């Protein structure tokens, strides 16, 4: 049996030195807590089976609270297994700001939203356009921000210096439908 996209994602993300953990909806709160360092802010995990209610994460913060936060939690639209990339939508709730103006970004990915490679990723972008939704704005993010401009590689340039990925696996009986 071949490796599932989620397996590939986990190994690709781990190879980037990015902590990555699989969890279930039931275990989500406890799993997330281990990846969050306070103060933490977030945006709602729209379209996902889990939520940030009851966690230490302040959802929909004011800008000053965002600026003071150490951790930002946002949902990923989907993930690209081969590259260990997560796709972050620039939505009107400020997900882009929460994933960017923090030291640690925690991305929450639904296991059903893991595509094998870039070809499938762009098919997904195209479908979105064909659906009449128009093209959205997304960031394909792979590992923490980095620079080599100061003479050697440094993690944490303008963006977060740490990225964590939490993969939520739902009911195993669910059929993948790509």
């Amino acid at each position, binding site marked *: 049996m071949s490796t599932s996209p989620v397996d590939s994602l986990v190994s690709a993300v781990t190879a980037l030195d990015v902590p990555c953990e699989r969890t279930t909806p039931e275990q989500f709160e406890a799993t997330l807590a281990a990846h969050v360092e306070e103060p933490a802010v977030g945006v709602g995990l729209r379209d996902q089976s889990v939520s940030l209610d009851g966690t230490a994460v302040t959802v929909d913060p004011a800008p000053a609270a965002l600026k003071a936060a150490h951790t930002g939690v946002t949902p990923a639209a989907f993930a690209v297994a081969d590259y260990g990339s997560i796709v972050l939508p620039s939505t009107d709730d*400020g997900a882009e*700001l929460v994933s960017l103006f923090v030291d640690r970004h925690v991305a929450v990915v639904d296991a059903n939203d893991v595509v094998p490679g870039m070809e499938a990723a762009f098919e997904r972008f195209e479908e979105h356009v064909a659906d009449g939704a128009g093209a959205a704005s997304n960031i394909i993010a792979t590992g923490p921000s980095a620079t080599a401009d100061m003479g050697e590689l440094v993690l*944490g340039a303008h963006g977060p210096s740490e990225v964590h990925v939490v993969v939520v696996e739902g009911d195993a009986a669910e059929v993948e439908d790509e």
Partner: protein
Amino acid sequence: MSDASELRRLMATEGDAVFENTSGFNRGRYDSVAGLSDYEGLKTEARSIKEDAIERLPELVDQLRESVEANGGTVYLADDAADANEYLRSVVSDRDAERVVKSKSMTSEELEVNEALEGDGVDVVETDLGEWVLQVADETPSHIVAPAIHKSRPEIAELFNERFDPDPPLESAAELTRFARDHLGELIEDAQVGVTGANFITADTGTMALVTSEGNARKVVSATDTHVAVAGVEKVIPSVEDLQPFVELIGRSGTGQDITSYVSLLTPPVDTPVVDFEDDETPLSEATTDRDFHLVLVDNGRMAMRDDDELRETLYCIRCSACSNSCANFQQVGGHAFGGETYSGGIATGWEAGIEGLDTAAEFNDLCTGCSRCVEACPVGIDIPWINTVVRDRINRQKGDDDRFDFLVDGLTPDEESESPPLQKRFFGNFETAAKLGSATAPLSNWMANTGVARQAMQRVLGIDPRREIPRFQRETLVEWAADREVTVTDPERSVVLYPDLYTNHVQVERGKAAVRVLEALGVDVVVPQAPSSGRAPLSQGMVTTARDHAERVADRLLPYVESGRDVVVVEPSDLAMFHREYGRLLDDDPYEQLAVNSYEVLEFVYGLLENGASTEDLRDGAGERVAYHSHCQQRTLGLEDHTVAVLERCGFDVATSDVECCGMAGSFGYKSDYYELSVAVGDELAGQFTTDDTVDRTVVASGTSCLEQLDHLLDRPSTHPVELLDGR
């Protein structure tokens, strides 16, 4: 033009940092593309998307305008730099902006946007850390992707400590980065306008791709309410789907990263709320998302390049920097020598010729030796050496009658050029004439050529460096030797015509004799007719008309042999590369294909014979002899290094190979006084690989004439052509 002293200065001050970075990127590229299941397929796809986009550009620009306007943005098509800057100034002024923050954009440097805005009293801040270092230092980029690679960490620390006086002083890369991040972060958060470039823009949706690692482009867009993207018109591609091959190729090709930290696919104006970071009350979701977006599409010479059959390919360039990193000369001197007003590296000749003009391209164009390693590295397969050759030809014609010495020109330069290139170029371009004369009068010619008086004259008149050995012409040419030979193969397996390239015929005649004997030992009937030189020499001087004349005469001479069933075997890889690559540009399709399909490098041909039943028994047994082999740059681009290695190994040799891109000699390049030291610096990388503990006692072997000359010059031990190793006599 960068002369010897300027190149020496750059090599001494910036060379080490540039070499370490670019050669690291280049190694990273090899490693990273090896991880793709279909690298060549992706390159082909990327190339065809660009070909199609440039072909349909006016239509795509119209479609893009509709898409951006439907999204709520504005498109401005700027004819030139002044036009673009005027528009940018009006956007900034309409916004009452005091500060503009920028992410990295070469196009904005081409336009000199910063100067235009600063003239209005606007604070313009570069936020890419490399660009910011240069803004603080008031220096220009030395590389299109990593602009400050010429500066070492201690130099940057000194710069920041002097300028900002931080307490305690900064030292490590992490400290420098943290300082820059905090400093720039504050400036970004209260800026009004964000300026970005765009790596690609899709006509169907108005989506732009920004390929970055630091996250500054994300901040520049999201923390301001007015976004201006500045991009050349050539960045437009048809659809979002078309972005895929580029996203997979650009990081790998450039800095050797599978993908950079961030690929922003923005369809501006973005939905991200506009916030005041001091605000401690309004939740993000309640902040306004009212944003302005302006796309400034810049022509500035590009539409004329699109109409220019020779420069058009330049517009396929995705600015990845592979041609800089894979270039042996660039690795030594960087973009401050190997670059023009804005762009640097191999493809810069096309950009600068199209945007600034021939004079700017002429400043650095001669640093391209035509080694062709960049062609393989380029993700869209641009024939960068050809663009350099064509521009050199145009420069020659523009220069006209400069520095000519008629008394020498008449005799030694019987070329086809109507407007004369400079004398040095004409001498090297017509090297066949010198070689014929040299052989006819050898050994007197060799003795004369190496006298002090002659060398002084050569340096003064032709710019030939006195530190180089002049080739020693053989009295008996290969053709003459072959004509006197008895036919030794009675029932041939195959029949070939061995092409007597200029060097094998006049100078390195022994390797030609070895080639004949090796082929005959394997049952091949060999003829070696008189034939014109390939045109490689004039072509490398930018003398395209003369090269075409050579190509036509070579085809006329060799094709009758091909028609009678003979294969063409070539000893000199740079001439085989002419037949396979450049003749496609110089000849009609039919003769080109006939010659290209039927011509082989000599060890490639031997490999084919061995694969088809010939026996290594008939060749000299290597018996474990340890050899160090340097393949020729153009031979490697043709994919023919492996054949030589395989043949030598089958014959019992123990082979170690070099992995430098080029030996640095490159025909006439290393003879020229202006480039001698650069040539030796490139060659020293190769020489270093052949003097390690493992290689120092190995027999030195190389396929190219130039490589052999360079290795002989730099090593204490002699070098030889691989076919000579196989020759049992």
